């Protein structure tokens, strides 16, 4: 379904990613862990189109996405969250979630997600008036409402307590749906254990072959 092959990326002479490959099928649940600086962020950025790889290619179903701009990745069905839970600070949460799920075919999914997420009472608030655990959930809701092929989470545990993290994991499991593939880039293994089936470790300058079997 989704395939990244032979991805290499250097910044100013320093090779950050060398020969990374990642294959995903519908419904896969993969975790990627690794020390700081090993290239996890770069990997996410390349997988979502925010960075172009120096070598290698990226394909989703029959779409070649290599060198496409990030918005095309998103349109194609690859969605992500951000480490700092990116939201527009000048619009309410409700406005932004309804914007994400405005298409008629997503209305039901949005209503469903909102029901199960405890966010109803926060919809009229601005993102900086909302607690972090709720904001993380909102990001997942925003990511899932379009029923994407892949959802990539970027260090979702940052700033959450163990309890909040557990709750978040449960919520994620319930709402993910069978078709969406999940990739979690994270270093909290307890969280990974809740939401993923396979965990791979990235090491500096070593190739990585990820195929969930």
């Amino acid at each position, binding site marked *: 379904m989704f395939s990244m092959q032979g991805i290499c990326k250097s910044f100013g002479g320093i090779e950050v990613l060398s020969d990374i490959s990642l294959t995903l099928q519908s419904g896969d649940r993969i975790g990627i862990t690794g020390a700081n600086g090993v290239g996890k962020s770069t990997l996410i950025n390349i997988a979502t189109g925010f960075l172009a790889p120096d070598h290698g290619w990226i394909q989703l179903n029959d779409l070649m996405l290599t060198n496409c701009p990030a918005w095309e990745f998103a349109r194609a069905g690859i969605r*992500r969250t951000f480490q700092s839970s990116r939201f527009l600070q000048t619009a309410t949460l409700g406005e932004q979630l309804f914007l*994400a799920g405005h298409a008629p075919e997503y209305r039901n999914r949005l209503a469903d997600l909102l029901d199960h997420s405890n966010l109803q009472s926060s919809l009229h608030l601005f993102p900086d008036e909302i607690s972090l655990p709720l904001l993380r959930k909102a990001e997942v809701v925003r990511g899932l409402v379009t029923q994407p092929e892949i959802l990539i989470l970027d260090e979702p545990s940052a700033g959450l307590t163990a309890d909040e993290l557990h709750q978040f994991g449960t919520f994620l499991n319930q709402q993910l749906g069978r078709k969406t593939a999940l990739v979690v880039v994270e270093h909290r293994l307890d969280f990974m254990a809740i939401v993923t089936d396979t965990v791979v470790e990235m090491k500096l300058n070593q190739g990585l072959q990820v195929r969930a079997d």
Partner: protein
Amino acid sequence: MDPYLASVLTNMTLIAFLAISAYLVLVVGEVSFGQQAFFGIGAYLTASVTVLADGHVIWALLTAVVGGAAGTLVLGLLTIRLSGLYFAISTLCFAELLRFSLLQTRFTQIIDGRKLGPDGPEGFSNIRWIFDNHFDATDFLLLSVTCLTVLLLLLFGLARSRLMLQARMVGNDPILAQSQGLNPTHYRLGFITLSGAVAGFGGGLFALFNTHIEPAMFGVMLGVHALTYSIIGGLGSPIGPLIGVVLDIGLLESIRQLAAYRMIVFGGLVALFLVFRPEGILSHRLVARLKRRWGRRHV
């Protein structure tokens, strides 16, 4: 109504078009120092259609709209890879280039024994539409205010639509916008072109009102003033730019004795204002909070 008051208010209304034009570019996250050039193009086009082609005013204003939009579209396409300060400076250069072109434009014709038409730095005189159609100061004020109101209503409609929120996202956080599947270039070009259309229309009205236009009227200072009104007024609502206009021109008229010191006061006030409230008067948050309170009262 006192004709002087009417002309002051008309002036405010016309500058408001320019301020709104600057606002539309600010929405997509860019700063333009060049909107005055499209205002000027609209003015010259309208003057040409009414004077040289003896066209109906509707056609004249329509031409101004199309001309302004075309101008900004060209600018937008040329600067497609630029953003921030680079984009801002390029708008300045483009505007000055357009103004220089106007300075070189000489196309005079003898009509009814008079030499009419754009005449380089002398400008375009004898735009007699308001005289030929018996529009006095109050009539034209009514016309201008009506047009502005229609524009504002259209913009309010736009503001409530998805398009506006998406454009704001593109302007505020392009990375977020892209992650939501939005192509920033489309929004940029769209709003920039719209801004040119609005500026062109305002310029068209300006030509009719002033009866005389010349390139010197459409210099950088005009554009940067309009930009400042937009920023002070706030980007939370299309009325924001209007507030900025009223504040400055109102200030100018009310402290006429201090007219000489107006810029000293206003300039200082703007800088101070930006220290304490950089988002402008009508910020998005304020507007949202007002809407919330209004909604509650009507529930």
